């Protein structure tokens, strides 16, 4: 068993969500050293929280309905390309496209993904949960904004299925 790039990303996220600054891992002759570097004193996760864009409560119920409808699972409306897969939020929380502020995003439009590719993270009370693509294909569109609150079932991105 060896570590894949995705595993390393996941380990990094675990550290992000923990109170540890450093991790040394030895596995089958492989050595991994991770250290929080050039991180502001208050830690990166609280910086994440600070950056959360908080949508204001919509003034009327009418403004809610379309949003609610849009989160209605993966059922594509008529006319939508059936080869498009909607990656939806597995839980409510703050969605991040990158493992930490300033870091390159997990994926971008055009990125190739496998079912287990991490496409983003959802933070719930400082706990980081990785979100996986669920299909093999190419990222067509990123729908949810970085640092925004996403509801359960809300569409995060669309992936053009392949294979």
């Amino acid at each position: 068993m060896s570590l894949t790039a995705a595993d390393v990303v996941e380990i990094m996220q675990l550290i992000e969500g923990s109170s540890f600054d450093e991790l040394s891992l030895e596995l089958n002759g492989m050595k991994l050293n991770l250290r929080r570097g050039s991180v502001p004193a208050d830690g990166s996760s609280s910086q994440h929280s600070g950056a959360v864009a908080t949508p204001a409560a919509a003034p009327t119920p009418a403004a809610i309905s379309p949003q609610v409808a849009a989160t209605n699972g993966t059922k594509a409306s008529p006319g939508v390309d059936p080869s498009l897969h909607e990656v939806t939020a597995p839980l409510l929380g703050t969605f991040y496209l990158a493992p930490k502020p300033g870091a390159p995003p997990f994926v971008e439009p055009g990125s190739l993904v496998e079912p287990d590719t991490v496409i983003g993270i959802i933070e719930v009370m400082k706990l980081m949960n990785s979100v996986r693509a669920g299909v093999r294909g190419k990222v067509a569109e990123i729908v949810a904004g970085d640092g925004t609150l996403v509801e359960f079932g809300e569409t995060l991105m669309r992936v053009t299925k392949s294979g």
Partner: protein
Amino acid sequence: MAIGRIFIANRGEIAVRIIRTCRALGIETVLAASTADRDSLPAQLADRAICIGPPRPSESYLRVETIVAAARGTNCDAIHPGYGFLSERAALAKMCEEEGITFIGPTAAQIETVGDKLRARSAAQAAKVPVVPGGAVSSVDAAIELARDIGVPLLVKAVGGGGGRGMKRVDHFHDLPASFELASAEAGAAFGDARVYLERFVASGRHVEVQVLGDGRGGVIHLGERDCSSQRRYQKLVEETPAPGLSETLRHDLHAAAVRFSEQIAYRGAGTVEFLVDRERETFYFLEMNARIQVEHPVTELVTGLDLIAEQIAIASGAGLRLEQSAVRRHGCAIECRINAEDPANDFLPSPGMVREVSWPMGEGIRVDTHIVAGSRVPPFYDSLMAKIIAHGPDRATALQRLRNAISSTRVVGVATNLPFHAVALADPEFQAGGMDTGFVARLLERTPDMTERTRHD
């Protein structure tokens, strides 16, 4: 701290109820909704509804972190937990305290105190509030000595027990040694803990509770009592205030005991102190405190003219108690029926589904708290409470007549309801006389074998 936006961590009629008061106060609302409740009435009425997870409560309404993250993410100042779900979970109150969100309810420490039977009992004793006489005994001799104070009938119960195992009823003192040994042996075999305790057995008890408001600094007022003796398997079906037929001394003592208990723990917010009223001995015992708004709060609102949700919000925002005890006036009588999607002709089996048509009653003195309109769903994942129909009148006879008319003019198509039960219960001579014990519903069902037939000819 002024509260401008409230996150409602609940569903159903109580969510609608909270939204109604928030609107009146100019407070915005954000409602937590599972996927099963996205199209519910409260989701339409709230300023915003946010989907927190799948239908199963453990994956949505019971997730403390999700609730707090959703409240924070939507810039809410406060969380109203309603009743049930997370309302009496200290974890939510604690996380709110840590995150700087106002929890509309008591402190986490108070929730823990009243949630622990032994601690609550000690607090009651410290406040000189009577508890059911009894105590732990480790030998037959000790049991005999304690039994002299308690009197018979009494129960021998397992300390680690539950579900009736290791429990013996003793009607005569000379049976006590044998029952003690038997209960202890059973307890040891069933729970690995042979310790037992004795408790007075109340053959005929009434469930009477007192509504209190506390400012969290030791100031407490009461808003009178409610009689909730009409219960089926510990589920309340009909509640009323005032409790009929109590002597004024007993009523006064109940109120005073509830206030003393709440003062003892410097209770904050709206709460209810429950008592068992012993009909034969004309006395009462502390049962527990419910640290939340109760389902049956509307009967208290109708006779006092107060809005309990507004008082909860006022206390949570630091305004304290807005009226003194002497300013609390109670007018007339109010009775509430809980309308559940349950089929009384089929052993009260829950009846989830789509409500095709519904017509709620109206008229003088009638209030309906509901989340059900035509097209609403009663999902199978939650309690089956559809509505509360409450009648108010200058006296019990008037309130009762208004409630009977209201029940008979209510129409629900699509799901079975317990409306036939209520029609029978309110017409029953025992209910009309008032002051029944908690065995009333069981006796009523026994003498009314076919609920549907009865109501059709009623």
